């Protein structure tokens, strides 16, 4: 039966993460963006929320909890509301744990998952994106070729979160015309970190350019099964993060518009501004609902490709419009780095680019 009411557990989780995002993450978001660094203390605090471990079964050291995409969607929105760089940083272990949980063999699970169930944050990563205009998760330029029972991985990857700090990197490459995924220890020979990326937004998150120079991995590193649910899960997570970023920008612009006076009234009392804010609010809600629906479909084990892609494309467009409007509402002040909105516009612009980051 149609319902828009999260479960009590989900609400509790959302409230906990929301408080963390507002009280801990947001106050340091600007500093992280300026310095390009995220303090270890915030990462440790986030780890204690159990966002990663909770989804890992007890036999691998986790809490054996909820793995629902809807729950993840709720959490991602709140973290994205706090700050996108920090949200991605604290969630990157999922780039490894989620695909392994879904597609990994028993051996792979035993080898990989306990590392991400411990007391302290352990970074994981994924090498998905490629530095080319036609980047397409279903038509990658990087290749995986079988040689003497092993696989040899070659190609260029970009935007690889945390790079050398990651325990494992899931490498995506083309094998016989289709995309395949390999769980690779980040220190594997041939997996070479070229350098840190310099990008427009999410500057707090360290991302790297990675070169696969005939990186040889055993056949057992390959994940078996359909990658579509992994990519769809990624789309849902990214859409939820986009909703969070947009909501942050909307609320900031709304509050500013009520404070800022012109011609004797608050600028929010002018329809030109009030209507922009109304449209922002409607589109944020619309995107959240589209995203929940895609997540709900994933949770039912159904093919959610259509819903997830529609939600992701919609979210990428929405977040750009909303964050751009937020800068516009602030006028000249919006362009100055004393205010947060320019940061959200730069981060929001990224969603059309980000793909395949299965941080769900």
């Amino acid at each position: 039966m149609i319902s828009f009411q999260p479960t009590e557990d989900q609400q509790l989780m959302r409230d906990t993460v929301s408080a963390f995002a507002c009280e801990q993450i947001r106050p340091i978001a600007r500093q992280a963006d300026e310095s390009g660094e995220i303090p270890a203390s915030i990462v440790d605090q986030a780890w204690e929320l159990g966002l990663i471990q909770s989804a890992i079964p007890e036999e691998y050291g986790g809490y054996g909890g909820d793995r629902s995409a809807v729950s993840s969607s709720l959490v991602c929105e709140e973290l994205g509301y706090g700050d996108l760089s920090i949200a991605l940083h604290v969630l990157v272990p999922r780039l490894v744990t989620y695909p392994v949980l879904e597609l990994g063999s028993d051996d792979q699970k035993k080898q990989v998952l306990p590392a991400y169930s411990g007391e302290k944050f352990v970074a994981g990563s994924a090498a998905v994106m490629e530095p080319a205009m036609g980047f397409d998760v279903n038509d990658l330029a990087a290749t995986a070729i079988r040689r003497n029972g092993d696989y040899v991985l070659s190609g260029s990857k970009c935007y690889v979160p945390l790079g050398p700090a990651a325990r494992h990197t899931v490498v995506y490459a083309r094998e016989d015309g289709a995309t395949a995924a390999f769980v690779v220890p980040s220190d594997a020979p041939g997996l070479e970190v070229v350098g840190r990326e310099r990008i427009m937004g999410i500057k707090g998150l360290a991302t790297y350019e990675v070169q696969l120079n005939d990186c040889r991995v055993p056949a057992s590193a390959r994940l078996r099964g359909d990658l579509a649910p992994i990519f769809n899960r990624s789309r849902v997570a990214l859409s939820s993060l986009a909703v969070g970023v947009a909501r942050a920008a909307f609320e900031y612009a709304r509050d500013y518009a009520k404070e800022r006076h012109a011609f004797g009234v608050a600028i929010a009392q002018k329809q030109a501004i009030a209507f922009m804010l109304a449209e922002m609010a409607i589109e944020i809600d619309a995107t959240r609902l589209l995203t929940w629906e895609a997540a709900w479909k994933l949770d039912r084990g159904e093919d959610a490709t259509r819903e997830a892609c529609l939600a992701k494309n919609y979210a990428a467009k929405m977040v750009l419009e909303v964050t751009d409007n937020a800068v516009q509402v602030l006028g000249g002040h919006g362009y100055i780095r004393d205010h947060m909105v320019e940061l959200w516009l730069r981060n929001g612009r990224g969603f059309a680019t980000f793909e395949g980051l299965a941080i769900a």
Partner: protein
Amino acid sequence: MIDFELSKDMAGMRDMIHQVAEQTMRPISHQFDEEEHTDPTDWQQMMWDVSKGSSVFGGGPSDKKELAAKTSKPAERNVGATVTIEELSWGDAGLYLSIPNAGLGGAAVSAAGTAEQKQRFLARFSEGEPKWAAMAITEPGFGSDSAAVATTAVRDGDQWVLNGTKIYCTSGQRALDKSDGFVVVWATVDKSAGRAGIKAFVVEHGTPGVSVTKVEDKLGIRCSDTAVIVLEDARIPFDNLLGDPEVHTGSKKGFKGVMATFDATRPAVAASAIGIGRAAVDFVRDELAKAGVDIRYDRPVMKQTAIERDFMEMESSLQAARLLTWRAAWMMDRGMRNNLEASMCKSKAGLAVTQVTQKAVEILGPLGYSRKLLVEKWMRDAKINDIFEGTQQINLLIVARRILDYSSKQLN
């Protein structure tokens, strides 16, 4: 738990109504667009026979008692109404608006009437011949600015005497001249009191001094009658007034009660819009499939064709509007205040469907523009949803007031 699946009962009802739409509405859709001002009487009689006594077509708010009586199983009445209205409007929006029922007039009686009034005015909708009830708000001199109402009601003993002109009254002619129905007329009892002076009056068919002077020629929804009603010293019983007869200056009591009906009717209008939009999207999808055009959802943006991108935008904006509408209806079913959400869904749906149907005409080229097919009709029909029950802009204004926590004085 967040859930996007209709209950079994609801899905069954949707499928049944879809059959009605496909088998009885689509075949006559073209005819009653071309033959404006004629009634599809056989079809109306059939709809009356099947829907008589069921409240689902009214789209009115579920009342507290109903909610309380169903504590074990939350009511789905309003979600059900949106699903029903979407299917019927997928069939034909003009015909949907022509179904004999208590309509907007009935919704006002349900929301603001006493038990005696509900009995007196609404019982007729479950018996006898087909009937309509309508709502008359707009006047030649005002639309959205309802405080500017010029129609007057003056008390004379145990009667009210009404004078004024009402326009854009949906089903006004059917309510007054073609059936034993009624029209709920907004009029002021004290112009100096502003909104507080506005009251709603039930004006019965056959009341001397009440006449339908014109039925409008329109861009779309041509099967629906849109009447001009003139009231000249029209005398109605004192207790045909809905709500409190006293004028509470400085408060908007009474007026608020009538305005609350919009929170119920806006999701209904949004649902109708979505039905039209879906008709267009379904048609485009079939034509693209026939032409061998696949929609590849998981292509990156730069590899999408222009048609893929357009079509995906049509689908996602339609679905976004539908989910916003379901949410507004779901909140009503749970007895939650949905003023914000009702305006959100109406604003979104009116605009989305206007754009979706215009894009459908564009994509289909000569097929889209041809009156041999229904696509151009859907575009004409769709546009009304961006206008009635509050234009897109009025709904944005309401959304803006809610999110900014502003009164109508602070933001106007």
